[in-house]
């Protein structure tokens, strides 16, 4: 896209800036559109499981329901509680929404279709998702009301706890792929399983890690059965209690954008991203983005399915699962994975260029050449 704007007579710098801004706009619009549709799907699936019809009035099959809802909240009055801390109260939903969109910058939708293909893509996602806590904590504190504050405390403790095990799961994947770049991780999955399955999840060391990651992503996005932050019977509506109109809608959109992000991460890290499920030439005729969306929405379906099926956890059970089950298990698997990969000589194959770099660095260091060469 940069080349197109350069052809309009802009210098490279400005053409790049304009192209990037255009890319940001396109991705945000598409994510927002899919969020609107996904909310509809969520309600439809929930309705089907409960033997109801779900939304079916606005538009054909009720397809326009989310847009009608959006218009409705847009026209409502924004109520700011008089005891609230105004600036932070209004900033909190904006932060939640912005952070939820910012993470999409490094998600590759297909081979090369990514806004910024950075080396530290996975770390960027971790960094951005750790920022998500602030929207919740700030809204809970600024509302100056006890239920939102309880909910904010619960939410932040929950997010921090599950981020730890997510971090270790990501380490396992990175060990296999040898890169933090998301496109690199997807490419490393080509023909991974038995030489023809394009997915990490078929490996016996990675399958349990995928289960941990999937459950942690439910907890990270505060979906049922881990939706203790907005447990209606205990906390009214959690940290969103005092919000109305667009500020409420921003929380809502941000939440669903995060859910979609977690679904796409499941796809990219374990299920081969934009690659077809099997490494067979005719399947590559289907555009990569179709496979990516298919897998992502499959995970979203699982999210709604679980929402309709499972009862809510108790808070002590949630904390026990995060700290006493997932954390030791993922730590064990990091050790087991690295041991297995060392034993099978995986790093000699994957990190061959990096290994030569190491040796050049080591050789050019005259101070202690021998001791370090023994390490490499």
């Amino acid at each position, binding site marked *: 896209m940069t080349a197109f704007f350069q052809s309009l007579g802009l210098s490279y*710098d*400005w053409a*790049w*800036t304009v192209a990037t801004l255009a890319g940001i706009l396109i991705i945000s619009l598409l994510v927002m559109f899919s969020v609107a549709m996904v909310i509809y799907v969520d309600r439809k699936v929930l309705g089907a499981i409960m033997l109801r019809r779900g939304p079916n009035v606005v538009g054909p099959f009720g397809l326009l329901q989310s847009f009608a809802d959006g218009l409705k909240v847009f026209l409502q009055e924004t109520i700011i509680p008089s005891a609230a*801390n105004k600036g*932070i109260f209004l900033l909190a939903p904006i932060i939640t929404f912005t952070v939820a969109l910012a993470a999409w910058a490094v998600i590759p939708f297909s081979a090369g279709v990514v806004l910024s293909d*950075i*080396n*530290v893509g996975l*770390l*960027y996602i*971790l*960094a*951005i998702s*750790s*920022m998500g*806590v*602030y929207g919740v*904590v*700030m809204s809970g*504190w600024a509302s100056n009301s006890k239920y939102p504050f309880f909910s904010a*405390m619960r939410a*932040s403790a929950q997010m*921090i706890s599950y*981020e730890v095990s997510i971090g270790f799961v990501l380490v396992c994947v990175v060990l296999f792929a040898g890169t*933090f770049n998301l496109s690199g991780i997807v490419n490393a999955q080509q023909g991974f399983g038995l030489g023809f399955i394009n997915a990490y999840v078929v490996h016996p060391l990675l399958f349990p890690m995928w289960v941990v990651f999937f459950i942690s992503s439910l907890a990270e996005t505060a979906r049922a059965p881990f939706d203790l932050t907005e447990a209606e019977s205990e906390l009214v509506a959690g940290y969103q209690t005092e919000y109305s109109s667009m500020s409420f809608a921003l929380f809502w959109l941000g939440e669903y954008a995060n859910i979609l992000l977690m679904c796409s991460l499941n796809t990219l890290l374990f299920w081969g991203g934009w690659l077809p499920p099997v490494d067979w030439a005719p399947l590559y005729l289907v555009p990569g983005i179709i496979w990516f969306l298919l897998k992502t929405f499959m995970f979203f379906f699982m999210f709604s399915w679980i929402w309709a099926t499972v009862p809510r956890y108790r808070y*002590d059970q949630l904390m*026990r699962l995060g700290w006493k089950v997932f954390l030791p298990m993922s730590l064990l698997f990091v050790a087991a994975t690295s041991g297995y990969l060392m034993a099978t000589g995986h790093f000699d194959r994957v990190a061959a260029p*990096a290994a030569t*770099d*190491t040796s*050049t*660095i*080591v050789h*050019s*260091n005259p101070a*202690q050449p021998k001791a*370090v060469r023994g*390490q*490499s």
Partner: protein
Amino acid sequence: MIQAIAFYFFAAIVVASAVMVIWSRNPVHSVLWLILAFFNAAGLMVLLGAEFIAMLLVIVYVGAVAVLFLFVVMMLDIDFAEMRAGFSRNAPLGLAIAAVLLAELLLAVGAYNAGGLQLGTPQDRLAQAADTSNIAALGALLYGKYIVLFEIAGIILLVAMIGAIVLTFQPPKPGARARQDVGKQISRRPEDATVMKSPEVGQGIEL
């Protein structure tokens, strides 16, 4: 051009939010300004080409350390009048620290004007010159040349963690309630807990 705009943007926000950290009266606002400063410092790191450090800055400081700050400050019930009463008492100490910081700043400006320092070792430059990513270069150094120091740092952190756990751990008191047995809770079925009864009319309740 764009790098310059980005640099001045990030740098201006870092300085402004650092000023606001000490300026704002509400401690929660102070912590939030501090977070903004961290975040923009990470932006400056990205401009330097140190993307790994930038991401770590956000993950560690913004994502973990500042959340704890925020927790503590939100939970504390801070009395502003009392805080202001202590101002004159602590003023000499504050002035002394300010003087030291000012001297350091002047020294830094002087050193900067005195010309470039030869700080970088040839090894750092080679790591950059070899077309490796940040992570690969750092990894090669940390797990190669500085492996012993790295391990020592890890052990210090482990000892600190165990120390914190030992200090806060309270063994269950002898007279306390029985400890929670999760396996027992999960394996409990409705049949074990409830009994179906169909009493006759007028029976079942003793009046």
